[in-house]
């Protein structure tokens, strides 16, 4: 019978609880998104087994701190926008479970300050008494905890600890499953099976021979030279030069399929001659590896070069590593071809490694590509054999331990770094593994092991912009893991000795090739066949849908009314009527909120609503405010700024009358101003908005609150019935907020209030439709009153 994964996980959880005496949970596990599911799963088991979960007081305090300080959360953990919300939820959960006697909170007076230390401190005390189940998400802490529960020479009889983390669906996963035993050991080259006549010896010392060999004549085009090997000779003619470089020139010969490299006179050294002699002493014969096959002597029998097979094709650097040229030279390639190319190249390098030949200077300009299965390795005379080193190399392909040093004898470990880099750059055509956003430069990144591509939850967020993240996403997990563990500074394979060799990589890439060819990859995601996919790989248990606007595919849940987030933020651009600056009429406003365009930009709007001046009203003596917007209005009309408040301005001004009677009558005392408007309470009318903004983590002086307060004090308060309305809200709002905070649906309610009321209200104010805003706000209060049955 086959068990489904959930059953297996549920059984594992049950076993964990049954087999331990004490259960501890760490802060970070409480803050997991799936913490809720976890308790759903574990509580029935705990009840059945009559066990409890122990939470140190320090953990509770830490959670409380996060729950009560949204600002601190943002500051300390800007990467986790939900921290505050999760912490609130965690505190609530602890309270509920404590009441149900499922959670127990422990503390000693001598507890240290940090939750992490508490666990280790407690574990040390109890390790001889109890088997422990410890739940944490923290690798380091997990590791330290395991160490405490190890027998040592001085302490015997230590009990067992099981350290688990909460995973996706609220079950547990054993930390030790992630440990090295899961990683196949890097394969060592199988040189033992290679006959001795093909195999070079190992050397510990660099061969150093000085001096040049005498040479009287460097042969040129059209001349005859002699190829010499094992006492056999053959006269061949140099037909034409096909290439030249720093060391000499390569000639096509009349010996079909073979070319001759002729060195420049200063490069004809004794060292080179000895190295070539050694190279020719073994039978190296691998299709595509243009290894030296014979010495070339001039007509006076002096050493001038060597004979090799002719190569053809475009070098990787000028084809595969440049997307525009890749398209030009290999227009029909897809991922099957790039993976096949990796396999072809790996087989050749493995052939050489098995024979103790180290390529040394692996780089994209000495590998030529005709097709995914036809590849040529050139410049082979620089390869390292025995004590003859390869004196050059490109920093990009140089292992961290060799960076900024002079090249000496290279190890297979050194070389495997170059091989891994080459594979990475074929699968991400031309992009070096250590390119990253905001990086210090490739060499520095290599030295520090700053690798930016993600593996599961492990990520830095610094992957270069562009298509590279999608190339990465579509690789098989095993390949991503092997790259990650090799390149990331704390990776299992990062150290020289642990780097996987060509045999290991060959297995991974051959398997990948099989999955691509038999359609397994494309069955899950048809973009997996593309060299440059346009999006991330689909996850198996998620539903995908296309964005209505851009047509790209996304997880369905992330779309809002069928539109992706990028498109929601994007939109039509136009100019602010006031400052001419750019305004975007976002698709969110257009399709989701169905709002009209703003006439002026937000900055201008804020500016028009800031107070330019406070004056006292000439008539009633009350202070009133003139905003920049109002000032502009009056300035534009050529009017001076008002001296009376808005209320008095609306009253008809008594027409001036000429007094005929002399003013001998004593005037009645000037009436005291009528009862002033109740000074607006800071949170009065905006109580609900304040709660919503707090929930969203916005500051007290955020745009929303400032705008609504301004609306309340400078417009609503002056309308008929306005003051009364403000007063009414002032009484009722605290009740609503209280109910709201206690509500089970508070998340969705806050969201609803924001989207359906507060945002539209702001919009109405922005368009100058104050009455509409007032109506909308009234509607909201009514809705909430009914919802919570408040009179």
């Amino acid at each position, binding site marked *: 019978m086959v068990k489904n994964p959930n059953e297996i996980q549920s059984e594992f959880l049950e076993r964990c609880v049954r087999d331990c005496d004490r259960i501890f949970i760490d802060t970070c596990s409480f803050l997991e998104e799936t913490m809720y599911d976890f308790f759903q799963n574990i509580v029935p088991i705990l009840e059945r087994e009559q066990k409890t979960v122990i939470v140190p007081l320090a953990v509770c305090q830490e959670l409380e701190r996060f729950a009560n300080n949204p600002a601190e959360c943002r500051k300390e953990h800007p990467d986790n926008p939900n921290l505050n919300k999760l912490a609130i939820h965690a505190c609530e959960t602890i309270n509920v479970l404590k009441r149900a006697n499922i959670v127990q909170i422990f503390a000693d007076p001598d507890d240290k300050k940090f939750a992490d230390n508490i666990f280790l401190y407690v574990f040390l005390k109890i390790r001889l008494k109890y088997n422990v189940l410890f739940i944490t998400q923290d690798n380091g802490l997990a590791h330290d905890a395991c160490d405490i529960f190890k027998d040592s020479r001085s302490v015997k009889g230590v009990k067992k600890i099981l350290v688990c983390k909460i995973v996706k669906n609220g079950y547990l996963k054993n930390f030790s499953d992630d440990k090295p035993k899961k990683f196949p050991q890097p394969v060592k080259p199988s040189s033992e099976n290679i006959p001795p006549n093909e195999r070079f010896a190992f050397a510990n010392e660099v061969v150093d021979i000085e001096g040049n060999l005498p040479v009287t004549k460097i042969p040129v085009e059209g001349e005859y030279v002699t190829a010499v090997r094992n006492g056999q000779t053959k006269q061949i003619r140099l037909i034409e030069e096909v290439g030249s470089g720093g060391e000499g020139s390569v000639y096509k010969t009349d010996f079909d399929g073979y070319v001759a490299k002729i060195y420049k006179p200063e490069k004809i050294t004794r060292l080179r001659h000895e190295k070539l002699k050694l190279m020719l002493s073994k039978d190296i014969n691998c299709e595509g590896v243009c290894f030296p096959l014979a010495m070339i002597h001039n007509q006076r029998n002096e050493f001038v070069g060597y004979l090799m097979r002719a190569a053809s094709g475009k070098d990787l650097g000028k084809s595969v590593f440049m997307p*525009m040229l890749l398209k030009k030279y290999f227009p029909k390639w897809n991922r099957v071809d790039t993976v096949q190319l990796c396999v072809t190249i790996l087989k050749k390098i493995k052939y050489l490694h098995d024979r103790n030949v180290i390529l040394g200077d692996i780089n994209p300009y000495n590998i030529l590509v005709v097709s995914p299965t036809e590849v040529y390795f050139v410049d082979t005379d620089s390869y390292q054999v025995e004590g003859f080193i390869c004196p050059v190399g*490109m920093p990009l392909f140089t292992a961290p331990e060799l960076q900024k040093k002079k090249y000496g004898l290279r190890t297979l470990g050194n070389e495997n770094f170059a091989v891994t880099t080459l594979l990475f750059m074929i699968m991400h055509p031309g992009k070096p593994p250590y390119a990253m956003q905001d990086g210090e*430069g490739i060499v520095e990144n290599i030295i520090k092991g700053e690798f930016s591509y993600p593996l599961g939850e492990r990520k830095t967020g610094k992957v270069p912009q562009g298509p590279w993240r999608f190339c990465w996403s579509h690789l098989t997990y095993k390949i991503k893991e092997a790259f990650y563990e090799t390149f990331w500074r704390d990776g299992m394979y990062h150290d020289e000795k642990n780097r996987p060799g060509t045999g290991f990589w060959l297995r991974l890439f051959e398997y990948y090739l099989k999955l691509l060819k038999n359609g397994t990859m494309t069955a899950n995601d048809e973009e997996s066949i593309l060299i440059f996919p346009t999006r991330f790989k689909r996850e198996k248990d998620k539903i995908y849908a296309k964005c209505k606007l851009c047509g790209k595919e996304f997880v369905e849940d992330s779309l809002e009314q069928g539109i992706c987030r990028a498109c929601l933020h994007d939109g039509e651009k136009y100019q602010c009527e006031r400052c001419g600056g750019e305004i975007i009429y976002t698709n969110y406003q257009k399709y989701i909120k169905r709002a009209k365009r703003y006439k002026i930009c937000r900055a201008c709007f804020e500016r028009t609503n800031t107070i330019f001046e406070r004056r006292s009203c000439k008539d009633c003596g009350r202070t009133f405010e003139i905003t920049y917007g109002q000032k502009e209005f009056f300035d534009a009309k050529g009017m001076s700024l008002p001296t009376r408040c808005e209320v008095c301005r609306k009253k008809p001004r008594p027409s001036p009358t000429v007094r005929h009677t002399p003013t001998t009558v004593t005037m009645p005392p000037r009436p005291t101003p009528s009862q002033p408007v109740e000074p607006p309470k800071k949170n009065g009318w905006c109580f609900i908005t304040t709660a919503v903004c707090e929930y969203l983590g916005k500051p007290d002086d955020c745009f929303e609150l400032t705008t609504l307060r301004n609306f309340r004090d400078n417009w609503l308060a002056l309308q008929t019935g306005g003051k009364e309305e403000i007063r009414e809200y002032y009484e009722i709002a605290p009740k609503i907020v209280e109910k709201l905070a206690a509500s089970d649906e508070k998340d969705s309610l806050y969201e609803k209030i924001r989207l359906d009321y507060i945002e539209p209200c702001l919009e109405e104010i922005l368009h100058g439709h104050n009455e509409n805003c007032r109506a909308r706000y009234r509607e909201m209060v009514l809705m909430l009153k009914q919802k919570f049955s408040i009179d």
Partner: protein
Amino acid sequence: MNDLLRKQDLESNPTPRVPICLCLDVSGSMGRIVGGNVQNTGRREYHDGKWWNIVEGGITALQEMIGGVNLFYDNLLEDDVARYSAEICVVTFGGNSPELILDFANLDRQESERQQKISALEAHGETPLGEAVNMALDCLDTRKREFKDAGVDYFQPWLVLMTDGEPNGSTAELNRAISRTNELANNRRLTIFPIGIGEEADMNCLAKFSPKRPPLRLKGMNFKGFFEWLSASVSRTSQSMPGDKIKLDLDGLKGWADL
């Protein structure tokens, strides 16, 4: 240029970039005749600090320079790697202030603009050299920032500074430009090629810009020779990898410059 295309070019091309800024003198004196048949008009005019005889016909120093710059572009476009690796920006100085003629971009993308703008350069006005170098360094800084933000690898930038006279812009700007290039060059964050054109170029001033390499005086009007050499150097660099030590082929310089 379209922002989206610019961003796409930046991100989808994995090739490490060689940013080059050409900082070119287009002051009045660059309009002097250096070859071809001329006819005197008999008029004299005062420009850029000197009296000039006005003639008809002939080839100006600026025209020679334009030919060199266009050759530079053409050579790079022919090289498969350099075409996608090199990025050029052109700042000129003449009139009263420097002018950004072409901002950094993929060479293919720059092509039509280049064809219009380079050939349309005109010699006029003063020699605000310090101002121009500062503008060029600002452009380089901005581009470097863009590379970093996108995670694009690049070589340390090159600055080619060509003038035929002596700077007559603001002294403060000139000193600021000199101290900026010195600091960058000493920290290996900039390779600068100061080039004097003709006998009247202020070689002492040019020397101040370059702490490591003396300025070069162009032999005759051999702009072609210089730009041939420069494009060959760019091609060679673009085939190395960032972090490699770049060895400039200074042998090539002997043909065109008085060292």
